[in-house]
């Protein structure tokens, strides 16, 4: 198995899935040095590859370099990865270093992220008396002290078990947490906030408050962030539905669940019902083969209809990066009749994002503005990748010298050149829709952003 994979790799040495297969094969055959090399290769190709990062640390740990593994793990955990396997491995390493208390909290954290990642053997070692049953859900944010410094743990309903359903929440973010994007904020104020804040004004003109607003744009550019911030700006209840909940509705063809969701919003109005990746739920019926799917979409259309008085005071906020996959019926008046484009972060926003990201990292004093200028067309997620690359570089320096050295401006600039902006793919495809399928000027803002008119 390993040999044949190796041959395949000789033919295409940059093939990540193949490298992943090969690294696993190495692990099975206890070739840890080779395993380490392979994961390092994957990380070179894709610095954000979480599995590889985890695999690399595991290889170090398995080959007995426990303290090196621990140092690397610490650096990773400080960024609070949402990757259960990392916390599981951290627990194992902490156990090897006889830090029982840490091991326990890491293990809990892993289970929080993914209830399915239970490991009997490890659990026995960590909790010789048996693991106490899960505590009742905790408040929004809790800080736990660990040997790696404070790790803030947010209870996020999106990441919990799949059966659990959305709950009411009050997002902590507000527009102040969203860097730049002033034009968009202003539009949201006009189209979302004022109506909800001044319903009597609207009533005087015989208009109802509520309906739907659709945000669209390239991935990683802050749609989710600004939606949450919108809710934080007003005194309304916020109900957020995640992609996984939606997909589970599909697989279970569960119109009931969808109805319950809207009922919950209606009972708690004024309320914002936020559906992330809404294209998954509002899919184009023409793309559907089975009628089961259509029923769910029809149900969604019916629930959204604002002619339904019960929807008064319920605002439906949808975010998507493929608005063209949304059934046109959802754009009729009374449904998602306000459509807003969320462009890649402008210079101001990029600077703000960088500021937020370097906040709790050891970074040399530097001019973030000029770095932000280099990040043209970068999404927020791209900038995160940039910082990861620079952090890795600083870390390998640190490992050589054995003490913490700050991330230098040079490392950041170099990383900015390495990371390629990921928004261009989105625009390549959006351009076609905007040029050829721009009914009723839906994509005018995209054309404007790209400098294409007419």
């Amino acid at each position, binding site marked *: 198995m390993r040999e044949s994979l190796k041959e395949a790799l000789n033919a*295409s040495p940059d*093939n990540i899935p193949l490298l992943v297969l090969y690294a696993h094969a190495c692990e099975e055959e206890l070739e840890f040095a080779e395993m380490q090399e392979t994961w390092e290769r994957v990380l070179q190709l894709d610095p954000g590859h979480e599995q590889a990062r985890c695999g690399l640390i595991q290889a170090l740990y398995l080959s007995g370099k426990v303290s090196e593994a621990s140092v690397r793990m610490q650096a990773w955990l400080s960024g609070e990865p949402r990757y259960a396997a990392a916390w599981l491995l951290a627990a194992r390493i902490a156990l090897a270093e006889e830090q029982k208390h840490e091991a326990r909290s890491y293990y809990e954290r892993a289970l929080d992220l993914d209830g399915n990642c239970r490991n009997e053997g490890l659990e026995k070692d960590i909790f010789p008396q048996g693991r106490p049953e899960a505590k009742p859900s905790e408040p929004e944010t809790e800080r736990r002290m660990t040997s790696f410094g404070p790790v803030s743990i947010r209870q996020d309903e999106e990441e919990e078990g799949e059966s659990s359903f959305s709950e009411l929440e009050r997002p902590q973010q507000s527009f102040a947490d969203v860097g730049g994007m002033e034009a968009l904020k202003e539009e949201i104020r006009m189209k979302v906030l004022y109506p909800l804040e001044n319903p009597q004004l609207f009533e005087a003109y015989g208009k109802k408050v509520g309906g739907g607003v659709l945000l669209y744009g390239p991935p990683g550019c802050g749609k989710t962030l600004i939606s949450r911030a919108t809710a934080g700006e007003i005194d309304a209840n916020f109900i957020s539905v995640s992609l996984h909940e939606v997909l589970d509705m599909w697989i279970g063809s569960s119109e009931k669940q969808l109805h319950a969701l809207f009922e919950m919003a209606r009972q708690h109005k004024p309320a914002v019902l936020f559906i992330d990746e809404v294209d998954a739920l509002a899919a184009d019926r023409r793309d559907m083969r089975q009628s089961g799917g259509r029923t769910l979409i029809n149900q969604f259309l019916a629930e959204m209809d604002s002619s339904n008085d019960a929807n008064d005071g319920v605002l439906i906020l949808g975010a998507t990066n493929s608005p063209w996959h949304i059934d046109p019926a959802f754009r009729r008046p009374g449904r998602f009749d306000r459509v807003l484009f969320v462009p890649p972060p402008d210079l101001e926003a990029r600077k703000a994002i960088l500021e937020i990201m370097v906040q709790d990292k050891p970074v040399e004093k530097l001019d973030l503005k000029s770095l932000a200028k280099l990040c043209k067309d970068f999404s927020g997620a791209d900038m995160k990748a940039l910082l990861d690359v620079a952090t890795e570089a600083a870390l390998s320096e640190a490992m050589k010298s054995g003490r913490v050295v700050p991330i230098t401006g040079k490392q950041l600039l170099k990383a900015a050149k390495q990371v390629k902006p990921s928004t261009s793919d989105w625009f390549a495809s959006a351009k076609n829709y905007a040029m050829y399928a721009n009914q009723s000027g839906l994509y005018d803002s995209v054309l404007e952003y790209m400098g294409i008119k007419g």
Partner: protein
Amino acid sequence: MSESSSIEYGRLMMQRHRWADAEKHFRQALESDPNSAEILYMLTYSIFLQEKREKEALSLSKSLLELEPDEEHVQELHAKILLTLHRENEALPFLQSALALNPEDPDLLCSLATYHQLRMEWKEVEQIATQVLSLYPEHSQALQLYNTALRLQGKTNDSLEHAGQLLSRDAGNAHHHEMMGWNALQTGDVKQAELHFLESLRIQPNSPYSREGLKEAYRSRNPLYRLYFKHQMWMASFTAKYQWMIIIGLLVLVRVLPPILEDMGLGFLSTTLIYAYLGFIVWTYTCRPIGNILLLFDTKARHALERKEKISSAIITTLALLGVWGMLGGLISGSAPGLLYIMSGGLSLGCAFLMTFAFQSQKPLAFVFISLHCILLLLFAVAILAVTLGLFLPDPEWFGSTYRFSRTSILVGSILYQTKWFQRE
């Protein structure tokens, strides 16, 4: 999220033609079960269906073949990927072994028809498409193959009627509009073609074929380009073998005729003939990039071009214009320095011709090599011009050897740069 739900979500996305999203879910599934050939298969498929990702898909399907060499689905997928990469000869054995198990599978048969399409064997394409349609009259790919086969065999009346019928049955189908577009192009009805391609794109904005068709329609507004398009379609109606015979036949004609003409006292005709032949070849290769330049002046058509197309057409047009200018200037002045102008103009035209191969190539290294070759030729051209200005006085020998070297290198390059070494990996 568990592995099985990742697969489920991925399938859901595949059903909705959302390949990139499907890819994401399959990758997740593969992470939790890296040894599963089934997930790797679906991952490969989802990548293959995305534009310009065929090469990635190919390297995955290769590793898949190692895991499951006898699985017919794997063979079929591998063959399909090879076909889209125009590597039809490598695809054939996989197609055949998959067909041996499933001789009536419509998709496999369409892949076989595509194999023949790539070899320009239109009779076979028509025959296989007819066979599929007799069992599955609505098979979309078979309908398209059938129509293309008719059209390129010169049966334009039949193909036009066929496309018209399909369109009247279902005017909301992007493929039908696209089909009409190509037929309209072939019959020279540029306006109609443009409308049909636009309609097809309105329904399916990401269809690369309709986008290509629209660009052809825009370029065809120019009569010189329409002539070229006619010529292309005429050439396409021959199989690849015949196409070579035509080119070689013309070359022989150009080689054989001059002495005969000379005997008849028509020596001047023989040079004209050679130039006409060379001009014709250069025209057929540079017509598309030069046609693209015209699009740049149209506000609407401009955005249909990709960045790469804009750059290549700008470079090739500039070289060709310089070449034509030099040659014409030289011919008009007719004196001794005129000959020098003709020489440098010819070199520039030769560069325009060679650069078309550089831009077609999928290999960055080949691009660099051909570009360096052209830069060398252009340096010669500049040196020759310097002579006419009296800035540079080489010995007469220099001219002869430079001229011979350039001529040979252009000739060798024009053959070499079309080969697999330079064009494909």
